[in-house]
């Protein structure tokens, strides 16, 4: 305990010294990530990435000669806490913009607070609801679920498969995906023959898959985040399910392949381009950003950068661009953000406008298949 306090104290004094050495006061940016709790698989890479990018910007001289200061709080995936912390960032820390929160639930809770205070919020969550309808000060970097669904349905249509079974996790991510899967089915001539869910901590999904096996579905689409989908993949193999299995972008990291093991073979999923950066053609606009992000993350954290971290990368870089263009006031940043065009980040090429605060098209997703424990592009 004592040691902890003394290290904390040492770190704090070091921090005071380093800030005191600077002439101009730093520009404060707040961040709310679910670093602990059930959504920590989002919050942790997001926090790591955001801190990494900010450090790097500062090392390179900051933004217009001023350093950035990132203040990160952990929401634990709890909406009440997220609201309290957003208030703290706005009222006590006087930040000019906020990155995050990590989950759609937290974002929906925080959005009215940020909007009322006129502080731009760049969310890292995927739910379409966040920017539809558009709120003046709320933006997002994570690709909408709607785009991922469209990508899968397009492929199914191409293969002339019209009957699908959906299996989604009963949390914010799963229910938002399920909503989109149902809403877009008709447009692609797809019929949903079975609609099941599983709990985020469930350990056996054979019951749902057995039901799907008896439903004449031609493909299964599973919408969830680890570890549920890995269990689904294993159970599907156990039951000898012969139809193709599609996953969501929620599992697009090497972790999924590791967890599902042999059962991952042949599974397809829509993913941000970060997974397949080295396979992209040279003229791809995002390629430079993607390779830089992967290299940085690897050297800092000895781990593979995933697209969750990418959401935070995009958020910091978008804010950096907006501060360069619009100054250091919340209103200036907001206006500059809204006029961002052709920003090639990790999640895709962003084009914000007054009517679109999500900024991406379905080109942001590529469809990949797992072969020999690695990703290949589906043509």
């Amino acid at each position: 305990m004592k040691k902890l306090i003394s290290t904390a104290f040492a770190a704090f004094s070091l921090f005071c010294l380093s800030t005191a050495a600077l002439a101009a006061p730093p520009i404060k940016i707040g961040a709310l990530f679910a670093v602990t709790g059930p959504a920590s698989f989002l919050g942790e890479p997001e926090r790591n990435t955001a801190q990494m990018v900010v450090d790097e910007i500062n090392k390179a001289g900051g933004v217009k000669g001023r350093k950035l200061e990132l203040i990160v709080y952990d929401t634990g995936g709890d909406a009440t806490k997220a609201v309290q912390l957003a208030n703290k960032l706005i009222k006590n820390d006087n930040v000019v913009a906020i990155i995050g929160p990590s989950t759609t639930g937290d974002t929906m809770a925080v959005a009215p607070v940020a909007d009322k205070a006129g502080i731009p919020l760049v969310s890292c969550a995927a739910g379409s609801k966040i920017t539809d309808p558009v709120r003046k000060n709320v933006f997002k970097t994570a690709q909408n679920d709607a785009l991922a669904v469209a990508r899968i349905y397009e492929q199914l249509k191409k293969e002339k498969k019209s009957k699908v079974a959906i299996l989604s996790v009963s949390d914010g991510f799963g229910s938002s995906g399920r909503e989109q899967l149902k809403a877009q089915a008709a447009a692609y001539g797809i019929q949903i023959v079975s609609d099941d869910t599983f709990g985020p901590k469930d350990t056996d999904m054979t019951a749902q898959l057995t039901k799907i096996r008896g439903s004449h579905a031609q493909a299964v689409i599973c919408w969830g985040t680890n570890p549920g989908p890995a269990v689904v993949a294993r159970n599907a193999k156990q039951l000898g399910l012969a139809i193709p299995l599609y996953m969501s972008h929620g599992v697009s990291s090497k972790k999924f392949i590791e967890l599902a093991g042999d059962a991952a073979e042949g599974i397809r999923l829509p993913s941000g381009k970060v997974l397949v950066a080295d396979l992209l053609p040279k003229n791809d606009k995002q390629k430079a950003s993607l390779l830089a992000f992967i290299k940085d993350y690897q050297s800092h954290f000895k781990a593979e950068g995933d697209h969750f971290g990418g959401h935070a990368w995009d958020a910091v870089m978008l804010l950096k661009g907006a501060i360069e263009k619009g100054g250091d006031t919340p209103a200036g940043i907001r206006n500059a953000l809204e006029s961002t065009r052709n920003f090639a980040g990790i999640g895709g090429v962003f084009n914000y406008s007054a009517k679109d605060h999500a900024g991406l098209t379905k080109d942001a997703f590529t469809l990949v298949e797992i072969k020999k424990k690695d990703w290949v592009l589906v043509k």
Partner: protein
Amino acid sequence: MELFQQITQFVISGLATGAIYALIGLSFAIIFNSTGIINFAQGEFVMLGGVMTIFSLNVLHLPLIAAIAVAVAATTVVGVVFERLAIRPLKNATPLALIIITIGASILIRGVVMLVWGKDTQALPAFSGNDPISVVGATLLPQHLWIFGVTVLVIVGCRLFFHHTISGKAMRACSFNRRAANLVGISVGRMVLFSFVISAAVGSLAGVIIAPLTMTAYDVGVMLGLKGFCAAIMGGMGSGLGTVLGGLILGTLESLGAGLISSGYKDAIAFFILLLILFIRPQGLFKKGETERV
């Protein structure tokens, strides 16, 4: 015919899940019976079993058997430390204080594991391959057989221990009447410690054998603990066959509920039936009623 085949699959999958609940339920009941404590940190023992096995395999590079032994031993040590530091200092504690303490311990253990091993989910390789086995039209994995096997072994072991050894009988005596047990010369304190040892060992063993199927992470203990608690209550909090049946029934109900009624409400169905059981037979399914002493 197709429906029949589906139902066999539901039942078999349910029994496999139920066996896990039964094991965890047993470890609940062992502590409860000798101390009257509902140990809300029981799920953390299960988690520790899985996490430590993976740690011993991947970091210490031990062979599987040794890794399991290390994990079970280490969890047992945690159980002992927990009893010594958090349970023993309390004299004449109310049941409520004990509930809060065990909740505190569960948060603490979870937090330490999260800090030491991180938040990632990890998978343990299956003990004997992943090739499905076909049983009356339903499929099972070899790992499920391991689970059934270990469950049977643990039940038999418990039975032998509690009915045929001096220590086991002494522990049962404590559960019937602590003061009387003390008067005939049984060291109640030692029996309490003993129950924590056995319970931690059984819990961690459950965690080890399910890790290849369900994977493990610092936070898997909560849900598993809850289900094990549920199984133990259904069986009337006995450390024998009642709890095992409770677990198997719970697992089967969940699986049938998910397959035939609604997957979203599967836990709700299980808990609803639990409530009905409590309302109709408050002493559990398989236990004779007791009269309350004033």
